[in-house]
């Protein structure tokens, strides 16, 4: 089965037991929001979402094979 690679950062790692990357099974019609729910990551804490290095909204449907990056509020410079 095709997978989605999910990378999480900073405070969001508390929801993956400290893991920086997790893999979830691809499912038909699965959105980024559904992946967040499966991982127990609160949507309101997820400020930045990338799918394949491009910004994406939570309603983005994942086909499988994508890389998803999830960030809480990040900044500096």
């Amino acid at each position, binding site marked *: 089965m095709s997978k989605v690679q999910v990378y999480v950062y900073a405070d969001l790692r508390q929801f993956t037991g400290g893991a920086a990357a997790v893999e979830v099974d691809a499912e038909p019609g699965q959105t980024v929001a559904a992946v967040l729910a499966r991982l127990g990551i609160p949507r309101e804490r997820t400020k930045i979402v990338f799918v394949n290095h491009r910004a994406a909204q939570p309603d983005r449907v994942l086909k499988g094979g994508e890389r998803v990056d999830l960030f809480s509020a990040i*900044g500096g410079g």
Partner: protein
Amino acid sequence: MATILRVNMSDLSVRREDIDARYQELGGRGLTSALVADEVPPHCHPLSAANRLVLAPGILTGTGAPCSGRLSAGAKSPLTGTIKEANSGGMAAIDLAICGIQAIVVEGRPAAGKWYRLRVTPGDAVLEPADDLAGLGNYDTVARQGERFGGKISCISIGQAGEMRSGAASIAVTDVERRPTRHCGRGGLGAVMGSKGLKVIVVDPTGGQRPRPADMAAFRQGVQKFNEALLGHPLTGEGLPKYGTNSLANVINAAGGYPTRNFSDGQFEGVEPISGERQHDVIVERGGEIAHACHRGCTIRCSRTYVDEHGEFLTKGPEYETVWAHGANCGIDDLDAIARMDRMDDDLGLDTIETGATIAVAMEAGVIPFGDAAGALRLLEEVRRGTPLGRLIASGAEVFGRTYGIERIPTVKGQAMPAYDPRAIQGIGVTYATSTMGADHTAGYAVTANVLSVGGQVDPLRTEGQVELSRNLQIATTAIDTTGLCLFVAFAVLDNPAALEGICEMLSGHFGRLISADDFLALGRQTLATERGFNKAVGYTAAHDRLPDFFRTEKLPPHNMTFVVSDEELDQVFAGIG
């Protein structure tokens, strides 16, 4: 009443002067740029007696306004040939404000080889011989001032790079622990200070008084509103204190805009070992300090204290830009080695961005291989020894790249680009190209809407919206730089209208008359027009507001993009401003 301190290094005189009415309500970048534009001949050599180094606290510095401790430094830049403003955290700006100093203007030049200390107290200012400090790094220089003048002082100093009048030389400012960890980094202002024979400024605020707002009640109301906005924003209230600026490493890398091996890739395979997350864990495990304030009254506390394997202090941060410049940009994934480079940069008095970018160009030239951390540290040691190779490193990326016949030199107006590739983050490319300062991310930080979802969203790979985004940010940034507030307050300002209301209320309370958001932004417009006027008089035109050619010809992985904002669009950034 606040005064300007006029320091003449030719006749070694110091005098206090009542501030001219037209400067009375200015501070920070607004004041340093106005004084440079009014008093420095545009065509002068930046290291000549005719150039002037201007230092100024912001309008709100010392008042107790949160995060308002920035020290602005201005002069004609030896690196870019443009007007230059670089600002820094640390304690000196607050202490100068308490001494009643609105600006220090250093002019002239002493006999060659002579070094001086300027000592400032609330009632006095004197120049003293300081030949004994010649050749010392910033850490030793500052330590000696502490031993001699006691614990209340703060220092503004140069290291060996400033003494050598190098293009990458910074001006160091001491932090709360009186360490020279904060710097007016960009544009070689340390070389201007070195050309004046001024090794260190010691500020002792003992007996001085904080500037008192004209309308204390209105001021306090603004402080409360502003504080609530800063503490309530997830970035300024949580993200920055916990993970620091280097939390950006992973997000910029994931966005494909993390310049790697001298801007030849947009992603670094070794990012995790040098990320903000790893840095946080290392600091906590070793007993360093996160959520550290670089000056009193900072509520964001993005600084940190980095200790070595034995728990001994090594350096602050290091900050995102430094970790990138000496890390990904050099193909180096060793955080401890990067921290040692940061310590050396701070001690030598080098801009970490320019220095890392120069080492990366040296790697491209084959002087040392990419990824060679020990070699990079050796190059910094060459700077300390003042060897020809060390002086070349301290001269910046443009000079080094030209000397070695390198095509890929990531500079604009002679200043190296910071840690965002403009091919993957087009908005920051607009700022790099058009800023009055040369390539500078802080001048208009379009990374906010391009990547961080702060202040809205603008697609980083398209041209639409980038010019307007950069223009608005450049105006707002210049206004913030004038107040003395740290630019990081902008994250809250861009997302929460109450933050800007708080700033305007603090300014209204300070001046005792109503300051609107339009008045606030007018500060930015006016200063940008002044800076552009100076640059035009030097000879800068629209043709200089461009990125190096390779950004339009070399595609950057992973998006395989070039810089696509047209020249015609770039020329619109300052339409109607100057």
